[in-house]
């Protein structure tokens, strides 16, 4: 992954943020992301993000759990080691409902959480670039990605007009790397990767 240049604008009011998103998209700037301290309903649609299909994954994990439970138990009780329990049928489906249900839930929940962490690239010991420390407190941080042709001063004044309070330009690697949160030096700075803008 390479280092890119970003213009960062901080908003302190969501009522200003929403129209600003509209303006940015209309002006044709590339909206990298918006970092917010809490989930903002409707912001994903305003940014033009598609709906997540995490719940579909959850459903697939759920039916995997159901089949695992039913398949496993029926194999054990009818093929591998049929136990005679009071002369009752070996294939005792009603008695398997509780375990089947529990495994359905377990597979779905564990699978979804792992998928969530994978998609969002979340794991312990990962370090990511944070555009503003107060994005998890009270600032709504809008990040616009620049390319070679972007005039950053123009973007800055555009954001200021849209209502951003604090505006700056940052070079950042947007992926993740292994590292410590108490160190300010980032691996790519140490390695002195060249950027297109310097």
């Amino acid at each position, binding site marked *: 992954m390479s280092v890119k240049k970003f213009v960062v604008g901080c908003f302190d009011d969501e009522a200003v943020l929403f129209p600003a998103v509209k303006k940015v998209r209309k002006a044709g700037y590339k909206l990298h992301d*918006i970092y*917010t301290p809490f989930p903002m309903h409707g912001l994903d649609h305003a940014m033009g993000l598609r709906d997540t299909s995490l719940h579909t994954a959850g459903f697939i994990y759920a039916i995997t759990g159901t089949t695992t439970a039913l398949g496993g138990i029926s194999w054990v009780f009818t093929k591998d080691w049929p136990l005679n329990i009071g002369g009752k049928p070996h294939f005792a489906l009603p008695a398997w409902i509780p375990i089947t249900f529990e495994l359905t839930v377990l597979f*779905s929940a564990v699978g979804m959480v792992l998928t969530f962490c994978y998609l969002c690239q979340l794991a312990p010991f990962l370090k990511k670039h944070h555009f503003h420390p107060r994005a998890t407190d009270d600032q709504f941080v809008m990040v616009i990605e620049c390319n070679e042709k972007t005039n950053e001063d123009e973007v800055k004044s555009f954001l200021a007009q849209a209502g951003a309070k604090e505006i700056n330009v940052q070079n950042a690697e947007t992926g993740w790397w292994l590292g*410590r*949160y*108490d160190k300010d030096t980032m691996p790519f700075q140490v390695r002195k990767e060249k950027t297109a803008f310097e």
Partner: protein
Amino acid sequence: MGLLRYESQTRNPLVTGHKTYHQVTEDIVRPIEAKPSKLWKIGFTISLFLLSFGAYSVYRDVVYGIGQWNLNKTVGWGWDITNFVWWVGIGHAGTLISAILLLFRQGWRTGVNRAAEAMTIFAVMCAGQFPIFHMGRVWNAFFVLPYPNTRGPLWVNFNSPLLWDVFAISTYFTVSLLFWYCGLLPDLATVRDRAKEKWRKRMYGVLSFGWTGSTKHWQRHESLSLVLAGLSTPLVLSVHTIVSFDFATSVIPGWHTTIFPPYFVAGAIFSGFAMVQTLLLIVRKVLSLEDYITLEHIEVMNKVIVLTGSIVGIAYITELFISWYGQNPYEAAAFRNRWDITTPLAWSYYLMMSCNVLSPQIFWFRKMRRNITVTFFMSIIVNVGMWFERFVIIVTSIYRDYLPSSWSTYYRPTIWEVGFYMGTFGLFFTCFFLFSKFFPVIAIAEIKHILKKSGESYKEGVGGIETQAPEEFAHEQAHAH
């Protein structure tokens, strides 16, 4: 969409004081960043003491076997299983608050869900100890897992409710833990980004998994929370249903009843809410979070207590009625051992009745629901009552079996049975004290999310809307963004 965001003024604000987003962060993170208070240290020490006493009792259980308990010929399940059911039941309120109330869109859950979910996890941890050590040879505990073994392979009995319990409790614990931790990620990131000390930045950096607050991540997070809530809702009902199957699928008079699943679930929520009240009344005082856990929250939870307490009361009376109406002499005898005051354990039945059915009725009065002292006192009473409910169901049903010659054995616990129970209190409160010191006890992001519709200053702001025509209001909302 806009209309959904509007909340009527007739509801009291859920966050009092005129808070901004930053103040919310400050208020909730303050106890984490401050040095532990004297009260915290005293409480933590007592918990550790209880925990070590419990650990010693359990150590003796392993070394000498459970013969050191006073279980006897007829009472094969005594304090251990009573405590197990009691602890599992307590856990249920946390899931009810975090999952079922999320599906029902109850805004007030945001103030209490984090602590209640933590309570669930710690309570299930405590509950799990009892069946495990009741096995006696605890080093063989893994025999309950279905894995290809060298004994045949001899599989576990999938038709047994005791095995269903293994699956139910372990799934419940895992799912609750995942749900709780996913909710914690953004709040841990908040603590991380404020941290000044190196160790704190590092610790919360690891714990928060590199959360940034990206819109896409929030979108997935919302979807995840909703589906996990949807999964947890039937799960929590299934868990106590299955716990009740441990009894209901047996042929013991007094246990063999179809009413058990709903009766146990209602009882679980009842006792769980009482425990939530006990904990939160202390937490809001000690960490001064009265603005977030308001009288409103306490009142709502008291309403749940009076509702579920009454459901439990109806179950008690139904059981009693059926024992007469069913004309089964053995069932009648099992219930006679409860209500007949000349029998040796009748006191526990009447204690249960007065704690669970009679005393919560004072919550029909608004003044009582909003009285903190009364609430705190009642929360303890309810938990004592619910402990005795399990004791009554388990012990009074089996201490007099079909053979009157074994009736003389009156069951009373030994110090090690009591010690084990005290030890789980130690475990529970040790975990809870650590949680309240190192984790945000209130979901910061969720409070911020409801702040602009349920916060005090915003409530005042929408005062004029009430007089507006609905069409006009809808039009305005639609064009707000």
